[in-house]
C-alpha cells in the first residue's frame, strides 16, 4: 500500500505531477502561478524544466488539458481523469498517514 503507484502512476506526495494536480484542483493556472502555488502549500520550488516536464506527462495521460488563450502564459485545468487520479493518490497518502500516526500514537485531524 505505502509507496504503491496509483493507476495513473502517481506515487510520492512531492511528485511534481501530484503537486500540479493538487494545485489545479483549486482552479486553472498557468505555469508561473502553478509554481508559486506549489511553493506556498508544499514548500517545493519547481523549476521551469521540472514543471513543464510534469505538465507534458500529465497532458499526455489526459489528466490535465490546456485552455485557449491569447496570452503566451497558457493556463491548464485538471480533467475528470486527473481528479480521479489525484483522489486515488490522496487516498493512498491518507492511508499511509493513518498507519504512521497510529503507530506513533498521534491523532490526525479528520477530513472535512
Amino acid at each position, binding site marked *: 500500500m505505502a509507496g504503491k503507484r496509483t493507476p495513473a502512476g502517481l506515487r510520492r506526495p512531492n511528485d511534481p505531477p501530484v503537486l500540479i494536480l493538487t494545485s489545479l484542483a483549486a482552479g486553472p493556472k498557468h*505555469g508561473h502561478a502553478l509554481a508559486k502555488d506549489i511553493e506556498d502549500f508544499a514548500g517545493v520550488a519547481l*523549476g*521551469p*524544466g521540472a514543471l*513543464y516536464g510534469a505538465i507534458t506527462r500529465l497532458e*499526455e*495521460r489526459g489528466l490535465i488539458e490546456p485552455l485557449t488563450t491569447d496570452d*503566451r*502564459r*497558457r493556463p491548464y485545468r485538471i480533467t475528470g481523469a486527473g481528479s480521479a487520479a489525484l483522489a486515488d493518490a490522496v487516498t493512498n497518502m491518507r492511508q499511509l498517514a493513518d498507519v504512521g500516526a497510529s503507530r506513533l500514537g498521534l491523532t490526525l485531524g479528520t477530513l472535512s
Partner: protein
Amino acid sequence: MMCWYPRRWRDRYGDEFAALMEDAVGDGPPTLGFKVSIARAGLREHIHGSGLFGDRTPAAERVRAGSLLVLCTWTIFVLAGASFSKVSEHFAQAMPVSSRPFAQGAFDVVATLSFVGGFLVILGASAALPAFVRFIRGGGWSTVRGHVLRAIALTLLSLGVVIPLSLWAHHLNELQRNGADPTYSGVFVIWAVVVAATLAQWTAAGVAVARRVALPRGVLRLEAVLAITLAGAMAVMTVAAALWWGSLAQNAPWFLQGTANGTSPSPFTPQLAVTLALMTISVVGAGYGVMRVTGSWTELRAS
C-alpha cells in the same frame, strides 16, 4: 536555452515555456544552475520522445525506435569489425596447419555475416525508399538537409584522403604500414577517425530521416524483422570473433603480439580487447533495441 528541447516539443510548448522562464528569471540573467536544469530537462524530453523508454509512445514509435537503435549499434559494430579485419590480416599463415580450421571457420563466420549484415541494412533502406521519396516531395528535405549535407561533406573528405593515402601505403613495406612509420600511422589514424565520423554522420542522417518518414505498417514490420535478424548476426559474429581470439591465443599467440614464431607472449592485445568490447557493447545495445521491438510487436500487429 530551449535549443536543448526536441523541435516537436518546442513547437507545442515553446511560447508558454519561454514566458515561464522570463517570469522565473525576472530582471537578472539566468544562473548557471538554472541553465543546467533547463538543459537536463530538455535532454530528458529527447529521451522520452525517442520511444526507447516507457510505454506512453505509440507502439509504432517504439518499434521504429528499437529498430533504429539496432541500426546505430550496427554502425559501432562496423567500426569494430574494421579493427578486427586489420588485426586478423594473414593470421592463417602464422598458425600450425592442424589448428587452422577452427580459427578459419570462426573468421569465415565473421566475414560472411558482415556481408549479411550489410545486405540487411541495404534491404531496410530500400524498403523505406518509397516513403523517403514521398517525404522529400512533401517538403521534408529542409528538416534533414543539414544532416545529409554534413554526411556528404565528410564522405568527400574521406574519399579525398584515401587515394593519396593508398598511394603512399603502396610505397611502404608491411612493417612501415603496421606502425614502423609514425608519420604514416598518424595520418592513417586521422583518416580512420574521419571515416568513423562519416559513418556516424550517415547514421545520424538515417535516423533523422527515419524518425520523420511515415512508414506503412507493412514496411515497419519488415524493418523490425530485419533489425532482429541484424542483432542476431551481430551476436553470432561477436561470439565467433571471441572464439577466433581464443584459438589464436592457444595455437599462435606470437601472431597477436607480432613476435617471432614459436614464442609464447601474452595473447592479450589492447586493440583486440577494445574491438571485442565494442562488439559486445553493440550487441547489448542491439539487444535492448530488439526487446523494444518485440515488446511492442503484439500491440503493433493488433493496430
